[in-house]
């Protein structure tokens, strides 16, 4: 079975959920303690949600300096697959592994609700199994999820296919900018998830692991986790192809 590591920072609170979600997606999921320098042979790494170090100062910033992040950065630099979910996205953004920053929600309140997102790119290690681009329903739960980058960066992200997920309405039409409840945090260009230029590191604010079980309301998140497991398995078999598109 393909081994996927889930980083546990002090204050991570979706680590167990993410481990379980990855197991449902067919992986052998192992926790990676923040003090450790090794990824224990993981074929991909997930940074889960939560409030690493209380999210004090700025979400994700203190966690970025954890020893495990040196290993994660090195892994990413070699083309290793890395996915940041919610707080994990904030951590990799702070660490500069993906472009942009996550600001406080425009409404200045924490928001926990179901949203709709759609995958913009369907041939990536994070989306290959999500199907036809129909809207996916899953929860968000964050206070700092407003995606920000300057205009030039945003244009470049769009051009190069680095916008991975966007908030949409239930019928799939794109969410507007500020003020449209379908774009819950006021993210620029309704961006819910991005990837780096090389395509092996991605982050998103919604929680696919919380939408991995019909009995919890939605299993739309499972294909995202399955895509990652599938890509990790391929990367394991063909290291040379590691994670490129």
């Amino acid at each position, binding site marked *: 079975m393909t081994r996927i590591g889930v980083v546990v920072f002090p204050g991570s609170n979706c680590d167990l959920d993410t481990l*379980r979600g990855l197991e449902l997606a067919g992986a052998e999921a192992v926790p990676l303690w923040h003090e450790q320098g090794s990824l224990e042979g993981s074929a991909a790494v997930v940074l889960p949600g939560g409030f690493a170090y209380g*999210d004090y100062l700025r979400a994700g910033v203190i966690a970025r300096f954890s020893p495990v992040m040196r290993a994660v950065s090195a892994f990413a630099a070699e083309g290793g697959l890395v996915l940041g979910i919610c707080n994990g996205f904030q951590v990799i953004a702070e660490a500069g592994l993906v472009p942009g920053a996550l600001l406080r929600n425009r409404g200045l309140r*924490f928001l*926990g609700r179901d949203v709709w997102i759609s995958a913009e790119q369907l041939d990536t290690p994070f989306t290959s199994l999500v199907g036809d681009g129909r809207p996916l329903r899953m929860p968000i739960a964050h206070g700092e999820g407003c995606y920000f980058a300057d205009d030039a960066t945003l244009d470049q992200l769009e051009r190069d296919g680095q916008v991975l997920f966007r908030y949409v309405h239930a019928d799939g039409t794109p969410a507007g900018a500020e*003020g449209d409840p379908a774009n819950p945090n006021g993210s620029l260009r309704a961006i819910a998830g991005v990837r780096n230029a090389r395509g092996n590191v991605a982050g998103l604010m919604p929680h696919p692991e*919380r939408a991995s079980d019909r009995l919890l309301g939605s299993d739309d998140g499972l294909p995202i986790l399955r895509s990652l497991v599938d890509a990790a398995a391929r990367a394991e078999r063909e290291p040379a192809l590691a994670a490129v598109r």
Partner: protein
Amino acid sequence: MIAAEPPVAPAVPLHRALGVTDEELDAIRARLGRNPNDLELAMFSVMWSEHCSYKSSRPLLRTLPTRGEGVVAGPGENAGVVSIGDGLAVAFKIESHNHPSAVEPYQGAATGVGGILRDIFTMGARPIAVLDALRFGDPSDARTRHLVDGVIRGVGGYGNCVGVPTVGGELVFDPSYADNPLVNVMAIGLLDERHLTRAAAPGPGNLAVLFGSATGRDGIGGASVLASATFADDDPSKRPSVQVGDPFAEKLLIEASLELIQAGLVEGLQDLGAAGITCATSETADRAGTGIRVDLDAVPRREPGMAPFEVMISESQERMLAIVRPDRLDAVAAVCAKWNLPCAVIGVVTGDGDITVIEGGLDADGQPRPGAREIARVPAAALTSDAIVHDRLAAPPERRRLAPAPGAPLAASDQLPERGMDPGAVLQALLGSANLASRRAVFEQYDSTVQAATAAGPTSGGAAIIRVIGTRKALVAATDGNAGMSAADPWLGAAMSVAEATRNVSITGARPLGVTNCLNYGDPTKPDAFWQLSEAVRGLGDACRALGLPVTGGNVSLFNESARGRIAPTPQIGVVGLLEDVSKALRPAFRASGDAILLVGEAGPGLEGSEYARIAGVAPEDGPPALDLALERQLQAFVREAAERGLLESAQDVSSGGFATALAECSMWAGLGAHVRLHVSSSPAVDLFGESPSRLVVSATPRHVPAVELLARQHGLPVEAIGSVGGDRLVVELAGAGATGAAEERGSRVADSLDIPLADLQRAWQHGLPRALGWTELEQEGAR
């Protein structure tokens, strides 16, 4: 007496300044056989507060039923624990943080969440859910808005960060809470029964280890000042220093505590809450029949220059006391180090039954070092189980009906349906009112889905359903408190609250396991306030006995009064139930067009205490509705059996806002209209909006209707198929003798009915709360 005092009051004696009465001082002297010194007096003052000793309520609470199937820990422990099979058990408890929240709403609510979570994981349980029951004054008042905003941010700020989903609660507005909001928080945890841990300090020679945050001057005197003084006095110098919560530290504390317990490294574990080290050491020692010698100098401090009494009673948050065998100390220290939590040996368990406080240090054998001083020695029992008990006087108010009807009438009473107003408009007004409108604007500020086990959270209305990961089971939780009925009749209010909370659990198909409760009442030294409390406890006990449920724990919050008066008596009931198969869970929302709608149970007279009465006013001779506990038991048994047999598509109970509100909620949650014909027995207002209990609105596929009817009759319940799901309107045709007058008075010649587009109701319901609170940015969102 007071007039005889000289104009310039002499210095108040220390004991009175600390809130200890002369009678209590005598009782302290009797237990010590001497005068207490100042430190000892401070320790008594915090431990003999109502909050820690239940000195007024203990005789009442003793009357409650506490035994029941599967109960493994009951009242007296940090939380009740009930077995759920498969070697698992659930721990749950509700507690108040009213007075701290009135002083500083954000931190008061945040530390309230932190405190109740510690009660849960102290038992060895992982916290899996929080519910918050909140009560405030008039939502249009600026001070209320400040409190609401702060409390909700505080609950979310703490719960979201520690990663425990807030899955439900209550939010009620009533002018009686203006100066004295209520913040009651319930927490639920799941444990392996083998890990059940007691808050006891057995084994002389074992070490008392304090871990978590350092001790500062937080909430000094909080236990006595905050929990036993009224708020009339706004002198800032009397304000205790505010306790600040650190949810990140709490998260580490949860993980470290559970790791210690799972590794079998601790003999006992106790959280530090009110009265700090004094409480934790005396309670653990008293439970084990031991004593603890406290090494004051060993307590890690946040600030220099703290006096011994400050260290002993500080309420600094996020601390735990573990009782540890000396040979396991290194292993305990290693776990604390892993979670980056300071830990220190602050004492040793002794066989003498006393809490002694030593200044100058203990040696390796736990004996005072040469030159060390004993600065306090108090029997642990005198601080806890042998604390003073007061026999308070209970007397009903002279005229019962004088109990304040909560809320001022908002509409003239000639707008009642029976006087000719359109019942649809009344329903729309009710659904848009602050107490009945959608709570979305509140619960969306909470993370209700973390831990990925929330099968039904606040979005779908009704009780919360939480999966037990790794099994087919789910836990179902609800909290309800009926202050309106309590104001009219405190026995009834408490019994109705138990009926409603258990009913909310039963209508999912779950079997209620036990009851926890938080009793929010006034000053127990006033006979009418104490009467309200004692009637409430009687109602709580009667209802639990009738429904066959144990009370597994709870909390009492007294002195909820201000210069402007006393709060409406508020019995907040928390219930946890077990659903054997989560896929069979019933929800309140209708499921499909064409399904039949059935009404189970019958409306009885009495509008007092209802939301309808709040907006329309009621005739002074009207009373509250009656509660038949035997019928309630049958009703709940019926719905559980119907759910188990798969006969129902949805189930909702009739509570706040009456039948019409229940029906509208089933429709609004589903986005499906309904058309029913309601037999009106006395008046349209009673049948549509009255809150007489023990009624259900259920839906079933047409082929199951006969079976549902048969089952209801077998349980001795009135049942009637009243219509069907579908369309985009809510239509209630009023039939029978009671209905005619209304139509005639309105000058209508057709049969009278409530008839309104569902979209109109939805709009009123979605906008109501943000509008009432002036949350304009969220009001727009309500338009979704």
